């Protein structure tokens, strides 16, 4: 491919400026600010900052509530990712087989992605409502058996289901594209070799999907860690008794409800480091095994 080379000029600077400005204002500046707050003690109503070194981190990392939050975040992230990807893959395979009505199906499958997280949370609040939701019949069998507002594991289950539902669409699009890029003749060759559809799925489609699978695992995990706020906020508010207090929600709650800016900043640095480490590990150790040529 030919590349154009330009001498540095004011035109180049002008063309680059908007993008650089956006990145700076919305990414580097807040990150730097969070970094600064994480190492100082920030007054809730403004005023001077005191340098405290690693005190904020020490406090966060010795807080049992924080570790509980890390644990439930992990559960949420892995469960949502597994559940949504399994659903997306199944649905994509059905659509790929072009069963009756697959066109309409394809369009409707993409819709959940367009719904904002708080709206998803709100919708699922009705779905899981112990008096009127889909599981309310359980309470007619034995009163109080279904109530995410009282039971911790039920609350976690509801946010996992809501989160997975929202993520299905995204994975679905990628799985479908990947399935359709498998050459038709490969499927035909394996049909000639005697493999039935299920066998073809296991021996042919899944192995050829691994690059997509890998990509989606990273995207979904990262998303589950960082983008679960809207669902938690509207569905459970972190409760009952911190059962759904995911890391990203705890940052918000500690910072803006508890006015502990510095503690929240430290938490957000830890979260950032965690996501970065996760991505690094996956790219470093997993990706190299999944490409064929």
């Amino acid at each position: 491919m030919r590349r154009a080379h330009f001498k540095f000029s004011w035109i180049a600077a002008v063309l680059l400026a908007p993008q650089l400005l956006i990145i700076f204002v919305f990414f580097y500046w807040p990150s730097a600010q969070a970094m600064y707050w994480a190492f100082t003690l920030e007054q809730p109503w403004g005023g001077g900052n005191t340098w405290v070194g690693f005190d904020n981190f020490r406090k966060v990392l010795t807080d049992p509530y924080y570790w509980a939050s890390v644990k439930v975040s992990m559960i949420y992230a892995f469960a949502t990712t597994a559940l949504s990807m399994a659903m997306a893959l199944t649905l994509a395979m059905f659509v790929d087989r072009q069963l009756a009505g697959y066109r309409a199906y394809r369009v409707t499958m993409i819709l959940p992605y367009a719904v904002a997280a708080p709206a998803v949370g709100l919708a699922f609040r009705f779905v899981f409502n112990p008096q009127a939701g889909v599981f309310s019949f359980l309470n007619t069998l034995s009163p109080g058996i279904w109530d995410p507002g009282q039971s911790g594991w039920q609350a976690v289950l509801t946010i996992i289901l809501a989160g997975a539902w929202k993520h299905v669409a995204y994975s679905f699009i990628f799985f479908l594209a990947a399935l359709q890029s498998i050459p038709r003749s490969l499927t035909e060759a394996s049909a000639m070799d005697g493999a039935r559809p299920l066998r073809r799925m296991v021996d042919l489609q899944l192995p050829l999907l691994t690059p997509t699978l890998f990509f989606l695992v990273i995207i979904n995990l990262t998303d589950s860690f960082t983008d679960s706020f809207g669902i938690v906020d509207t569905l459970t508010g972190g409760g009952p008794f911190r059962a759904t207090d995911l890391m990203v929600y705890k940052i918000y709650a500690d910072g803006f409800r508890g006015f502990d800016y510095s503690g929240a900043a430290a938490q957000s640095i830890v979260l950032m480091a965690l996501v970065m480490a996760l991505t690094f590990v996956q790219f470093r150790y997993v990706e190299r095994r999944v490409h064929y040529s």
Partner: protein
Amino acid sequence: MAEIDIRRVGKTYGKTVIMQGVDLTIRSGEFLVILGPSGCGKSSLLRMIAGLEEISSGEITIAGQAVNHLEPRERGCAMVFQNYALYPHMTVAENIGYALKVAGVAKAQRLARVTDVAQSVGLSEFLDRRPGQLSGGQRQRVAMARAIIREPKVFLFDEPLSNLDAKLRVQMRHEIRRIHNRIGATSVFVTHDQHEGMTLADRLVVMNKGTIEQIGTPEDIYERPASTYVAGFIGSPAMNLLPGRLSDDRRAVVLESGPRIDLPGPATGLNPGALVQMGFRPEKASLTAPGRGTIEARFDFVEELGAGRVYHLRIEDIPVSLHSEAKMKLAEGASIGLDLGHQNLHLFDGQTGRRVPLSVEMPQLAPTA
């Protein structure tokens, strides 16, 4: 070994008819080549035999069993695809052995068979490689091995050589023929390359727009093309065709350009004055001095082939070609005679394009005085 019987088979996509009333019997153990330009339906026909495409009407039987509603795996056919369709994530050995694995053959036995087959196609050193690490010819061999190992009743080839370079193509062609001779399965080979068709086939099928134009041995098809279409498709350069009318005594063609050319026998099947196309093969006619041949032509240009030359000439405005070993220096537009070779003339109906048989008369003995 199995006979394949194709009866009144048709194929429509929505409202578009792409194949109609195809009848074809493929004899057990024969090498049949289906030849035609792209879009003539030859690949569709092959895929219908394989079971990869449904037929819209008619019936296909393999070894006496109707297979219309059988899945590909139940038909006992193996197929070699144009782009080889090797499984990219499996090694050569896994590719070759996949059908056996699916069939549940034990690992030790499978390995032995894979080793055998790989050796027979010269792949022994490459068993641990992935398809991506192989050359085009090697991939082709893997595709062949994958078909051979199933010991199929029927071998199907869908233009398997068209992705190879010219030299390798000839080499693989020979190899395919050798494998066929050794295994003896019924083979159906689809191609658009007439050389492949002529050289490989026991019998050739020429297809055009979803119908069969002619079925016959390569020799039949070359010597007695059933239509102007076949005449123009087989042979390089293709048969020359000159439009004209049948003479009153039906023993000659009066060309549009004027000259009258005697036929080797009377065309009893047509009315006098009927529109006809007269054909002659470029390699059966020869150049003569002006005024001494059957017909006059003007020189256009020449192509050197090494083993001979193709002279491009014009009879009036109609371009014709002539294959000859003679080396002549001619100026553009120069006049030259053409000896068409009396026995070399073919006659086709000008309306339908079908061949008109000429009842060749035995040369009459001179009456004894």
